[in-house]
């Protein structure tokens, strides 16, 4: 078995509406354990686990925790980023719909360790089911004394509020998300200062992805050192993979880091529908690289993914078979970012429109060598000159396709 169920172990095993079933299945046990530990020891365990953020950027979780812990402000916020809007990603929805208390437990532990005073879960507006489930779970947790004043008889107070997005992808970016909670259009801020020093309402704020918080109880349970033994040296633990596209079994799978992409597609995904050939696979989501079939033996690992000058993404694998045209797919991706760009940075706002125009030339077999060069330089400009992760990663699909599908481009040149 290549699956390893640490944070998805309760999926389908408990009724997500029932806090009692969660408690029976080891739930809130790790919160009790954490409350008996020194705060610094909790952070130390996370540090030893080498846990990296699961939202896409892979930032070490312990560094954010240390950053927030050293702030002395009386208000410190903990935000769970559940604005999962990247095409191809749906693992956060699985976590919220199947095991909402695990997220809460992770947030409460992090808040206790860092001195967090108030929590927010920012859920995309499309996820109505997740929103109601989380609100329900928060009420249940309050009744049992896991949230609210004097949690489990300690001096620790913490509450969590659910906020809804309103159909904006860029609000998954940390500062855009903060702006959105404050009631503003979701446009990012210039960094530094980083959110851990000046975040929500100008106060120190720690933001993690749903999966990152969901992993915290497991780390408390097994200890950081044991957790770090799972996976690869640069990427410890397990990762939820959202598998979609032309595979037989689509869905969310939890695997230890280090598994080859091919195994995910063939062993977990059951291979390609009607045994067609794979034309291309997009990794991470719309902001990730597109790779050809011969590269599928690559392992899932943060370090390996850095090759694409991009981030790992949130763990999506989108498989596309031989019936699909590279440029149709690229146009859809670019149009997505064109629509979702907040408009603050000119290269991102205008660049996607121009990239779409260039790709249309390839679709219509009207491109020239100069168009290949223009596309390449435009993609680099957007990548380098945008303030936030949207513009920095959106050209990855183009840049990688120029590298690995050069022949497809040359085929479309005008004679």
């Amino acid at each position, binding site marked *: 078995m290549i699956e390893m169920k640490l944070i998805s172990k309760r999926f389908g095993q408990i009724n997500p509406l029932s806090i009692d079933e969660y408690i029976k299945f080891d739930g809130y046990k790790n919160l009790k354990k954490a409350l008996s530990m020194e705060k610094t020891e909790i952070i130390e365990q996370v540090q030893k686990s080498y846990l990296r953020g699961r939202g896409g950027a892979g930032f070490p979780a312990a560094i954010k925790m240390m950053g927030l812990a050293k702030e002395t402000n009386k208000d410190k916020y903990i935000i769970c980023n559940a604005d*999962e*809007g*990247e*095409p*191809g*990603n*749906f693992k956060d*929805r699985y976590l919220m719909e199947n095991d909402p208390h695990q997220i809460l437990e992770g947030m409460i532990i992090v808040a206790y360790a860092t001195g967090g005073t108030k929590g927010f879960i920012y859920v*995309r*507006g*499309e*996820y*109505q089911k997740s929103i109601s489930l989380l609100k329900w779970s928060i009420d249940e947790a309050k009744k049992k004394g896991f949230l609210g004043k004097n949690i489990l008889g300690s001096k620790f107070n913490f509450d969590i509020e659910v*906020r*809804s*997005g*309103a*159909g*904006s*992808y860029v609000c998954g970016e940390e500062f855009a998300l903060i702006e*959105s*909670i*404050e*009631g*503003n*259009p*979701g446009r990012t801020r210039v960094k530094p200062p980083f959110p851990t020093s000046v975040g929500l309402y100008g106060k120190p704020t720690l933001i993690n992805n749903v999966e990152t918080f969901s992993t915290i109880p497991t780390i408390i349970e097994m200890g950081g050192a044991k957790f770090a033994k799972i996976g690869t040296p640069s990427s410890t633990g397990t990762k939820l993979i*959202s*598998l*979609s*596209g*032309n595979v037989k079994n*689509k*869905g*969310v799978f939890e695997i230890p880091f280090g598994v080859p992409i091919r195994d995910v597609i063939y062993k977990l995904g059951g291979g390609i529908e009607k045994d067609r050939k794979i034309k291309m696979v*997009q990794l991470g989501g*719309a902001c990730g690289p597109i790779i050809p079939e011969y590269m599928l033996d690559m392992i899932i690992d943060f370090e390996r993914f850095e090759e694409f000058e991009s981030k790992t993404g949130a763990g*999506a694998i*989108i498989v*596309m*078979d031989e019936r*699909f045209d590279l440029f149709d*797919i690229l146009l*859809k*991706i670019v*149009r*997505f970012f064109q*629509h*979702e760009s*907040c408009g603050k940075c000119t290269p991102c706002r205008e660049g996607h429109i121009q990239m779409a125009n260039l790709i249309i030339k390839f679709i219509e077999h009207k491109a020239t060598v100069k168009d290949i060069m223009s596309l390449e330089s435009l993609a680099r400009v957007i990548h380098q000159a945008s303030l936030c992760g949207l513009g920095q990663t959106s050209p990855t699909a183009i840049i990688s396709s120029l590298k690995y599908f050069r022949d497809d481009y040359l085929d479309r040149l005008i004679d």
Partner: protein
Amino acid sequence: MLLKEVLQKYPKTEDQLIEILLDYQTVKSNHYISKEEIIEIASYLSIPESKVCSVLSFYTFFSDKPRGKHIIQVCKDVPCYVSSDVDILKTIEKELGIRVNETTPNQQFTLEYTSCLGCCEAGPTMRINDKIYTHLTADKIKAILSEYRVYM
């Protein structure tokens, strides 16, 4: 429901703006925020009207023009596209006799595109109001639309 009733549920702080707009637009029958309502919300929260307008125009969920009773949103992103055997949008357009971004003359349906709905494992997908429909086929779309026509 009157806007006043919705407003009363929320504290008068600026960060409630998006929640208020979402709440009111959902309960209002033609799902949009009018000029007069922008003024009323701005005055309730003691913020400039321009602030309400900027939020309204930024987020795709919001509309400043009347829409149909049911809002149909079709996912146009890659995972749904590669899972589709039929052109979902064209099927709905044909069924309702309208194009994307239009409303049927009887004000029952508005057809829109949406970015990914996060159900890529069950594509192709669409959303009608708050409900997501998955594994769409031409027949399934026809059945769903007739259900809305008759019962809702």
